[in-house]
């Protein structure tokens, strides 16, 4: 006779752990790579999301980050350079019940796949995009990327890059993304929280993750991630909270005309009341754009957190509505009727 497991509610999904999401393949990133942390935080947070393992699909393009699906014991598809958003869109439209994730990098999403990246967000399919931004091409061994800073010396730019980098968050906002956030490979708690929020948002969720490539671009983000400098160089966006930062939380961001101004909270001139307050759910994208631009400005901290999230109908929901509407007026498709429609004649 079969015995009931007393600890388990009949019919409920078994509780999963991080290990359940680890595939049997050896992880092959360089030792010390920031990708390890992102993989681990994803595997740690997934059990909390309550999705059956079989409903998860991880889709990647090409690059170091795109090896990610091989290490996940879920459905996965390692596709071709830059095209993961298109394949993810096909997966999602054919089965909207699946939880679909795109794993990509700065070269994959913003260079070769730039077109797909913006159109995915414009369409707003319910897909989560994790972009590992290390500001370098790692897999091809160290060329500059579309997020590399101007002047960057790499193998392909021995005299320094003459290009301007993308502001990734601004690009996503301009593409009308309905959820956009930034997190850090070295801030595991924050990263898990953001991944969870991205999952919970219905619509395209875009998360830029600053990720260290310790071989070709070591320390690119240390000013934002390392203990000594992090607090003074980042400001964590929290909905409804004023923009306070600094090791001693003694600085803030004030709106000065149309510019962000760093002010001291200890010299008596300004208080917390004078600071900008984050509104993640603001009606328009203006505030999010404003914060996104701070990334490019000297002498202001770089924002980290959820820049904006708002609800708008998903592409797949509209598609289902149109199919339902067509069936409402024409009835369920009838193949014989279709082939025999219009002017016909009989030959005896």
């Amino acid at each position, binding site marked *: 006779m079969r015995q009931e497991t007393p600890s388990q509610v009949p019919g409920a999904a078994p509780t999963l752990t991080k290990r359940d999401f680890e*595939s049997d*393949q050896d992880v092959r990133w360089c030792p010390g790579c920031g990708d390890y942390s992102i993989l681990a935080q994803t595997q740690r947070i997934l059990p909390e999301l309550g999705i*059956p*393992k*079989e*409903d*998860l*699909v991880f*889709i990647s393009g090409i690059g170091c980050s795109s090896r990610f*699906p*091989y290490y*996940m*014991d*879920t*459905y*996965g*598809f*390692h*596709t*071709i350079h830059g*095209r993961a*958003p*298109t*394949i*993810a*869109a*096909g*997966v*999602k*439209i*054919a*089965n909207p*019940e*699946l939880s679909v994730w795109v794993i990509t990098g700065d070269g994959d999403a913003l260079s070769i796949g730039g*077109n*797909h990246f913006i*159109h995915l967000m414009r369409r707003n399919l319910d897909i989560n995009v994790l972009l590992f931004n290390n500001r370098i091409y790692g897999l091809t061994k160290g060329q500059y990327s579309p997020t590399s800073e101007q002047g960057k010396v790499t193998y392909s730019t021995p005299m320094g890059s003459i290009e301007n980098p993308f502001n990734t968050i601004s690009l996503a906002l301009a593409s009308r993304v309905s959820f956009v956030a930034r997190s850090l490979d070295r801030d595991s708690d924050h990263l898990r929280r953001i991944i969870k929020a991205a999952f919970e948002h219905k619509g395209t969720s875009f998360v830029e993750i600053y990720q260290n490539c310790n071989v070709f671009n070591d320390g690119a983000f240390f000013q934002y991630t390392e203990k000594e400098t992090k607090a003074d160089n980042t400001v964590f966006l929290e909905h409804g909270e004023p923009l306070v930062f600094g090791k001693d939380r003694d600085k803030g961001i004030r709106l000065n005309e149309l510019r962000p101004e760093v002010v001291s909270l200890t010299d008596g001139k300004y208080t917390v009341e004078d600071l900008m307050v984050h509104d993640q759910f603001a009606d328009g994208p203006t505030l999010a754009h404003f914060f996104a631009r701070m990334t490019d400005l000297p002498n202001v901290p770089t924002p980290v957190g959820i820049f904006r999230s708002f609800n708008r109908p998903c592409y797949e929901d509209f*598609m289902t509505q*149109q*199919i339902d*509407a*067509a*069936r409402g*007026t*024409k*009835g*369920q*498709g009838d*193949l*014989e009727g*279709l*082939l*025999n429609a*219009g*002017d*016909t*004649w*009989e*030959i*005896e």
Partner: protein
Amino acid sequence: MNKKMQTIEEATILFAGDSGDGSQIIGTQMTEASAIVGNDVATLPDYPAEIRAPAGSLAGISGFQLHFSSENIHTPGDACDVLVAMNPAALKVNLDNLKPNGLLIVNSNNFASRNLKLAGYESNPLEDGSLEKFQVYPVELTRLTREALKDTDLSQREVDRCKNFFAVGMVFWLYNRPMENTLHFIKERYAKKPEYVEANTLALKAGNVYCEATEQFATSYVVEPAEFPPGKYRNVEGNMATAFGLVAASQVSGLQLVYGSYPITPASSILHALANHKEFGVVTMQMEDEIAAIGVAIGAAFSGALGVTGSSGPGLALKSEALNLAMIAELPIVVCNIQRAGPSTGMPTKTEQADLLQMYYGRNGESPVPIIAASRPSDCFDAIYEACRIAVKYMTPVIFMSDLYVAFGAEPWRIPEVSDLAEINVDFRTEEEGFNPYLRDATTLARPWVKPGTPGLEHRIGGLEKADITGNVSYDPENHEQMTHIRSEKVARIADDIPPLEVFGPQKGNLLVVSWGGTFGAVRTAVERKQGNGASVAHTHLRYLNPLPKDLGGILERFNRVLVPELNLGQLKQLIRAEYLIPAEGLNKVQGQPFHVFEVESKIDELLEGEV
């Protein structure tokens, strides 16, 4: 007056005018009317590249050629019996197509100096004697249409736009066509503008009555019904048949159809047709580019749907990397290449079949992909359906090829019974025990198809080389060679699953003509005519280009000479030479136009000369 009625076997009519003159509409109406009286019909629309070139200019001429007959026909006709030219430019562009003593109906109101100049005429051809070898009927189409519509409230501009229906009304009289169908069409088309229904109806009837009343036209013609196998028929264009075939494959297999596409001539009308049939659960996604369009097809296939993308040669160039991914991932998608004249942007509104080697070889690495080509508009239904069947059965991408001539052409189609369609069995794997993503069916070598969402079968696939059976990433040299052979063998085995070739005519002898794709009609007609004259010539037509049919080699051996007519510089010829080591000869044309039957006939004559 006393009007004569004369029975003839067949006729070819070309309607030509500015692209805004409605030549396509009246051509289609004459086609429908001819099909409904039981003629066999074949059409060739000829669009300009410009949507609306300057009125009266040579660049803006749009034509629609229709061939109808009491015999079975396979082409829209080499030359025309009737040319309806709405202006001097239409005359200039198409006069070479008119047979000597052919009927030339022109809108004489449009032959004023400005239009003559635009068309590059120094003098008025209606007056300078240059048209004397034709039967010229100058008709004041504009004035007569205005006259007929004088009691309507339409503006002069709106009235003038009805003159195409006046013209087709005349042609209906000339060939004794019933008007009911076109009257019904007008009602439907202008349902929201009753004043247009009235005006176009008046114009159509006025054109008809004009011919009856005027002494200009003394003879009308009767083309008796052709003999067709019994059944229910409709007219169908190639792209429409392609769309129907996809819906049919989706319905029969029970797989949702997901069609990703990016607008491109001449494939777009497949997207339009499918977008109109969401009641079948069809998803159409107009994507941001060609790559995204095949991307959604691949993603949909991974999810367990019937993923399809459609484009033309330039789009296929962009899709090739993704197509290769589908090949190595062994996912069933169908890729439609509706060919047009290349290379590069080429001549987008003209036909050609020069993408065969691109489809064969246009991918990096060893990348075998089955190729199926449609021979004529109605065959698009069967060919695309077969492409879907093979894709699903063998877990492989399949390329479906047609071309602009087939895609835009129309002909009568015997509507198939749904119950007669081939089965498309889909067997999604759900059994966890013993599962591996690259296990194979012993006969077809297909790997299992697993829908994400199936518990216990989580697995990863991708474009990196796969270890046999497990599908894990592998750089093992021997494994790579083995997997390359397996993928090749899988496609080769499809040859066991295709019907034997039909050889039309003698089963052995002097000359075999081998064709593929849209040249079927011209080649078959030429061979029929030569056989009628007692020549020893046979014809076989290839639907399956990859793999080639197993019996092709044996058939080729039975003939002294092999001719491969193609609208390219000899691509199938090259494949046949390489595969069978025979000196196949070519007849090649790259003018953006289909073969004329006489061109194929002359080549056959040339090759048979001196043969006994």
